[in-house]
């Protein structure tokens, strides 16, 4: 190898390490290589598909979250929207309506919930974290009180095509993974090719400047939360279809934290304006590799959580060591 090439490689490596994304990428590759060498059944097409599949629902939810986070928001009500809209759709279907109609009602509910949350944030000027925190509680309480009593809702009987979403395969690839892929592509196109996408970045970078340059921030915020709610609904359908049931108790679980971690780990900062779909994919796959490897090693669930946490912590610590923040340039009220 010539000296220049070596130098170039070094430069590339150091620039790679300059971002959270790069660090996570390196860690992901490391983990992948390590598991492939150490675990005999890890590096097989079947397992890798299973790996992606196992995290694709997390990935889909993370896509919705990413959109909101890029616009300097946060949506912790996604799980509530997901379980309530899907469960309600199932209840409607079981009470004699056609499944298609029921699913439409579910989608409508999700969109209405998203719009209301957006209105609360855009027009009520409530901090997104609190607005969505409270909205999650309200949506869940509403659903459990008025729409369905039982937390566990099975997929209605005789739903042939519906179970294909979660359990079918297209050219050997699970439909779940295909759905994740298609949504990734769609969101990528929206973010990079449409006015809506550009304006989303502008809002995330500097909401004040965005408003002055003529972007209607408020309708944009409403739209973003509606989309994230709709994506949550989609994720819920995939989830319900692949597990044959949906459990409203997911709302009480730490799943929303997992989604946030995927987004942040992939390199999308919570202060908005940055991040692409590839960051979501990276974060998702990294978490997938870790979880899958540890499951194959039969590491107990609790220790898996610990390992996951420590690796995440490492990633953000390395990021802060490589890119230290400056007292003079950091933003006030930046959590």
């Amino acid at each position, binding site marked *: 190898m010539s000296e220049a090439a070596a130098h170039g490689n070094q430069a590339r490596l150091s620039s790679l390490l300059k971002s959270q994304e790069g660090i996570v990428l390196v860690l992901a590759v490391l983990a992948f290589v390590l598991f492939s060498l150490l675990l005999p*059944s890890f590096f*097989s097409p*079947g*397992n890798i598909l*299973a790996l992606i*599949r*196992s995290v694709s*629902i997390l990935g889909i939810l993370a896509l919705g979250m990413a959109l909101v986070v890029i616009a300097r928001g946060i949506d912790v009500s996604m799980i509530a929207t997901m379980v309530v809209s899907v469960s309600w759709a199932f209840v409607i279907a079981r009470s004699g309506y056609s499944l298609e109609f029921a699913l439409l009602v579910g989608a409508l509910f999700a969109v209405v919930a998203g719009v209301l949350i957006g209105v609360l944030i855009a027009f009520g000027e409530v901090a997104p974290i609190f607005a969505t925190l409270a909205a999650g509680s309200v949506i869940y309480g509403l659903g*459990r009180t008025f729409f369905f*009593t*039982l*937390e*566990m809702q*099975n997929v209605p*009987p005789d739903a042939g095509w519906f179970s294909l979403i*979660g*359990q079918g395969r297209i050219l050997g690839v699970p439909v779940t993974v295909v759905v994740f892929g298609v949504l990734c592509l769609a969101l990528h196109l929206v973010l990079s090719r449409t006015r809506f996408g550009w304006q989303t970045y502008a809002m995330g970078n500097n909401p004040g400047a965005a408003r002055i340059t003529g972007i209607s921030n408020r309708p944009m915020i409403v739209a973003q939360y509606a989309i994230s709610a709709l994506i949550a609904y989609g994720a819920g359908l995939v*989830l319900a279809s*692949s*597990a*044959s*049931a*949906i*459990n*409203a*108790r*997911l709302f*009480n*679980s730490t799943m929303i934290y997992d989604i946030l971690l995927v987004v942040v780990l992939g390199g999308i900062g919570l202060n908005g304006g940055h991040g692409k779909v590839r960051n979501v994919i990276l974060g998702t796959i990294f978490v997938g590799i870790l979880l*899958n490897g540890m*499951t*194959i090693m*039969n590491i*107990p*669930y*609790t220790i898996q959580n610990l390992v996951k946490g420590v690796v995440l912590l490492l990633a953000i610590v390395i990021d802060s060591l490589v890119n230290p923040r400056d007292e003079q340039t950091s933003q006030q009220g930046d959590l």
Partner: protein
Amino acid sequence: MRLLKTTKWLAAACIALAGIVTASAQDKGLENPRSTTFRKTLEGKKVVFLPLSMGFDLTEGWAAVMRQQAKRLKYDFEIRDPAWSTDAGTRALQSLISEKPDLIVAHNPDIQSYARLLAQAQAAGIKVVQINLESNTQTDSYVGADWTEIGEQAAQAVVDKCSPGKGASTKVAIDTGVPTAASDVFQLDGIYRVLNQHPDIQVVSQQATEYNPEKARSIMETVLQQHPDLCGAIGIWDNQDTGTASAIQQAGKGDQVFLVTSGGGNKVGCENVEKGLFNLYISYNVPLQGEILNAEIARLLLSDGTAGENKTLYFNPLTQITKANVNQRNCWTLDDLK
């Protein structure tokens, strides 16, 4: 439906009988003093149910059965719903101790959290019945499944299918719920009691799913990738194991992997047995538990003894439901109980 028909028929018969009696006789019968005291003693008493959470088949089922008896015998029946939070549960229990109802029906989140408070409640003169999930404190009564027995039955069933030469292999996977819950602790003990006698059975995976079907699905999927020749799987709760089952179905191994799970005998669980998702469904029969619970409530409210004086317990019988015997009689829906 059938129950309703029977009742109707009975009612008609009664009316006819009553007609005959009034028409023919002067005899006004004897007052049964025991019946009067029975009703008088129970009337106006206060019973409080403290479940893990409302909103799932078990607690909704018990509550429906208990509410019916309360209505019939005219005592107060209230539910304090802590919604899966042990902390809210302990707070509710603490406030109950100062409120002093006549009887508490407690559903323990684990074997220790309520232990001390239940003892305090009894010391304060409140009678306590524990349902299905015990705590370390033994109280006036416990009604529910014997989790060790469920574990043993499940393990035995898997052993029967997966002993060397019988199944695809001798590999077995176990999906637990929350590792600290009472049902898990005792059930695992039962499972390993049997498995230890059969050293040839190999446990290849034991993971906690947090009662989450999606997590159960993804764990089972990975296990099947790793062990395509898996022979048996034991799940801890039917609600979570719909996920386990769908992973098995997807892998096309529905015939190869023998899935055992347990639950309250809800119709949805039975549907899954019919569909072939569950191979063996050990039911602890919620309506039956509810009736036993009712009998215990009445007995304790009538008894003059102080709280904690006599401690009894009753492990109710289990029903093994398979495709062969699944029917209307051993499955229930919430509407049946209301």
